């Protein structure tokens, strides 16, 4: 079964038209189509209407705001990977994009598509979780925004309501110079992560002013290792301190068990990738 059921296709030119087009019992947005189309071909989802937002070019922009960067919903993974603003402020994005599938998929797939698909192993949900991003949403009642912890509810489940669409994500700039690093273990190059880790480290006066560690692939949604983050903040900015805090990364963590990786194997990867990401981030923060 690799043929979708029949559906209605509409292609709005503006955001307003898109919101109107979404006024339907069973409408889905299509952007890059890299997750939706396979699910439709398997008939796992059978939307009656597809709303194609690819013509709404205002959603493709990556722009500076007063407090950070705003990444438009339609930004392709490949464009995010080579964007100069992102490279300057969030070099971890380009690093992570190297792990997103293959070139053809990176050329089509979009930031919002990845966020809305909400695969717990995907790179964008982890990046947004790590970077305290705010997901911007437009609906018939106007704009709203959601924090990652509110947005990602369960595997493939988000807080998006019917008749809403994600217009972009806002990434606030770190409070000072920082180092970031991304690590991932996948079965093959380009596969969904078995475990991924993203780290952000800010050092002031030889101490950790801020440490963030995000983990993907481990649990139902991307998570932050808050216990580790809290314990390290204020400590001397040394690799030994990071090492010592690693057990906190797996505290209370109950990883998923699936066809590809046992919970045990996943659990064994978490401190490894956490250490590699944190140490590289520390190194970059103190360069």
């Amino acid at each position, binding site marked *: 079964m690799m*043929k979708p059921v*029949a559906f209605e296709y509409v292609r709005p030119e503006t955001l307003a038209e898109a919101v109107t087009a979404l006024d339907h019992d069973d409408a889905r947005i299509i952007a890059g189509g890299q997750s939706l189309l396979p699910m439709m071909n398997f008939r796992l989802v059978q939307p009656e209407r597809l709303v194609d937002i690819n013509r709404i070019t205002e959603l493709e922009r990556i722009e500076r705001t007063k407090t950070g960067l705003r990444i438009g919903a339609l930004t392709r993974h490949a464009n995010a990977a080579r964007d100069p603003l992102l490279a300057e402020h969030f070099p971890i994005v380009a690093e992570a994009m190297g792990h997103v599938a293959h070139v053809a998929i990176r050329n089509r797939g979009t930031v919002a598509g990845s966020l809305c698909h909400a695969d717990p192993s995907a790179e964008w949900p982890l990046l947004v979780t790590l970077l305290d991003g705010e997901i911007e949403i437009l609906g018939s009642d106007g704009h709203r925004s959601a924090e990652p912890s509110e947005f990602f509810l369960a595997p493939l489940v988000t807080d998006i309501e019917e008749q809403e669409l994600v217009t972009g994500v806002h990434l606030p700039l770190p409070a000072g110079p920082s180092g970031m690093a991304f690590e991932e273990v996948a079965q093959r190059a*380009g596969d969904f992560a078995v475990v991924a880790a993203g780290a952000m480290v800010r050092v002031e006066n030889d101490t950790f002013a801020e440490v963030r560690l995000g983990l993907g692939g481990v649990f139902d949604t991307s998570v932050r290792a808050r216990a580790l983050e809290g314990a390290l903040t204020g400590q001397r900015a040394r690799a030994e301190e990071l090492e010592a805090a690693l057990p906190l990364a797996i505290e209370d963590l109950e990883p998923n068990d699936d066809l590809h990786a*046992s919970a045990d194997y996943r659990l064994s*990867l978490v401190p490894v990738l956490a250490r590699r990401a944190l140490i590289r981030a520390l190194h970059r923060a103190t360069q």
Partner: protein
Amino acid sequence: MTDATPFTRPKYVGTPVRRLEDPRLLTGRGRYAADIQLPRMVHLAIVRSDQAHARIIGIDTDEARALPGVIGVFSAADFAHVPDIRAPSRMPNYQATSCPVLARDVVRYVGEPVVAIVAVSRYIAEDAAALIDVDYDPLDVAVAAREASDPAAPRLHEELESNTVFTRRFSAGDCAAAMDAAANTVSGQFRLTRKTSMSTEPRAYVAEHDVGKDVLTLYGSTNVPGIVRDAIGRLLELGGNRFHVVAPDVGGSFGGKGSLYPEEVIVSDLARRLERPVKYVADRMEELTSGSQAFGEEVEATLAFDDDGRFIALDADILGDVGAYSIYPWTAALEPVQVAGFMPGPYRIPHFSATVRGVCTPKPPTGPYRGVGRPMAVFALERLVDKAASRLGIPPAELRRRNLVNAEEFPHRTGSGIVWDRSGFQECLAAACSAVDLTALQAEKARRTDKWVGVGVASYAELTGIGSRISVAPGMPMNTGAETAAVRIDSTGAVSAVFALASHGQSLETTLAQIVAEELGVRPRDVAVVQGDTALAPHGTGTYASRSAVIGGGAATKAARALAVKVKRVAATLFGVDPSDVQTGNGDIFVPGTNHSIDFPELARLVYSDMSTLPQEARETLEVQETYDPVFGTTTSSTHVAVVEIDPETLHTSLRQLVVSEDCGKLINPMVVEGQVHGGVAQGIGVALLEELKFDDAGQPITATLADYLVPTSAEVPDIDVVHVETELPDNPGGFRGMGEGGTIGAPAAIANAVADAVAHLGVEVNSLPITPNKLHALIAAASRQEGQE
């Protein structure tokens, strides 16, 4: 040729002639079965069983039939006139299974065809399929082969005595006594999990019935059109002049398109009944759940050897999980029996004993897969050889050197009865090992802490180009040992070479053209190789089992050679010289040192169209058909060396180096040979590290998409060093040995040995493939728990 410059005839055989099929295939101009569009064509979708073993209580098709665009809905009762597919064998202790084209009463695996729906589009056919309700009464299952082999296990086929559909024993010497007397033994229980061929192009079939002429044509992505023609011809009672099977461009098979499939019978029959062309294209999920599968074997084996490392005896117990039906025509015995057959490998092992059983399980049937039997045999034996080397403290390569059959010992008969003709067993081992700096690697292994480095060697021999005296599959009453070539020069002077072979990636349009060009004295691009169409040849089975170069190439050599004799005879009459003075080359026919020269079009014109220049009796038809049967077969040998690096923390395994040395006799085209090695090794990497079809306890497949069934990509395949070794040429017309499968035979064992070498210090053994980081993690955890207890 007006001057006396000695004419050096181009040597096409042995040169890397660019593939003649590439311009077509690489620019999207190939024509595959799915590309075929015919007027009034309708589309087939299949409702497949979602139960591993169940009785069909009822099928409700009313809603589906009522859907606009649906032409017909068919179940088993609608195919009552088609006999069940049964694969016969002369093998004693063999039970054939009855496989209806659509499941009748009972389904025996998830994916088995139950209902066929024909509609004006595949979309509508799929919509209708979703409306069909099959009511099942689940039956007990024994999913694992060992469980199913228990006489008390639920029987998959009520009419059979047991699930064990064959048992065969091999014995040479006195294995038991030799084992008892031996100074040393090593044992192991080895397993290759199920996998599938996964060609780029899924199976696709289009059947067209020319009602006026009463000729049925099946266009199919198959590598055995002759076998399909003969089989469906029998099932539907059609002669070969009323039923043709055409394999157009075929995008890979690796064995998966080498058996008869129910869908081929269904589209053929429905095209006649509906008087409309019927198309079926398998989707990827159907390929993963209903294409023939591979391996699913366990081998328990013991190797006995003396203190100098000389092998004395080998004992093996082989259990094959053959799936729901014994596949046509090869039978369920094809793969497991050849595990036993190739188990003694390229070594001198005086005493040999093996028992092999095949057990029906509620899973898709197993069938041919690149390497047939050899990958499992080589994996098990080569692991044992490494364990023996470790036991004696002898380097693995040295232990192999001591036991490989030496040049002067050929022909060598193995304990299973295979006779190896002279092939470079020792030479390949030496060549592969000299391409790797084993000493430096040992030092690096000891020094490095950031990676576990491992080196693995695997040597093997295989029988290729198998002639009529040996069945490709045990007891199969079908001659797969002969092929025919018809080479002709038509009245335009163009050369065609017609075969019953069916290239599906082997480059036969190039390599066979090289052979014909070489013998006839034209250029490869002047030769059109015509193949894959049963209307063009009286008999021929297709391309599989590393046979096309040896058997097809042999027939091509004989036919082109004989045609060259005719050409020279005609030219000699024309020139007034002796035929032995005439030479051909580069498209010219000439007498060296004279001004006698003519090209092929001119010769053809004089023979066919000009009624005055040549006397009537000299105007021979420029066509020769020759059949070649090697009677036995010829041996191809190889050694693979793999170097792996494992990240001690993530257990990610990367292949750093892979060396393949092979003796495949005379190379027709080194580039094509290397391409075959590269592709085979890539598949071998899948066997070793990635690919596994998994089933749950109820027999449900849980790897039904390419997100879960992982095949190697270019990122997982390293550069591969190929070293060609040519020893004595085999006794066949071209001096060729088959080599299309070898990459898949040697690589899994070499990689397994390399991984085992890398993790040996942890007390972990590699006995089951694929070995994934997840599995390594579990093995290491178990080993460290065990160590903790001791």
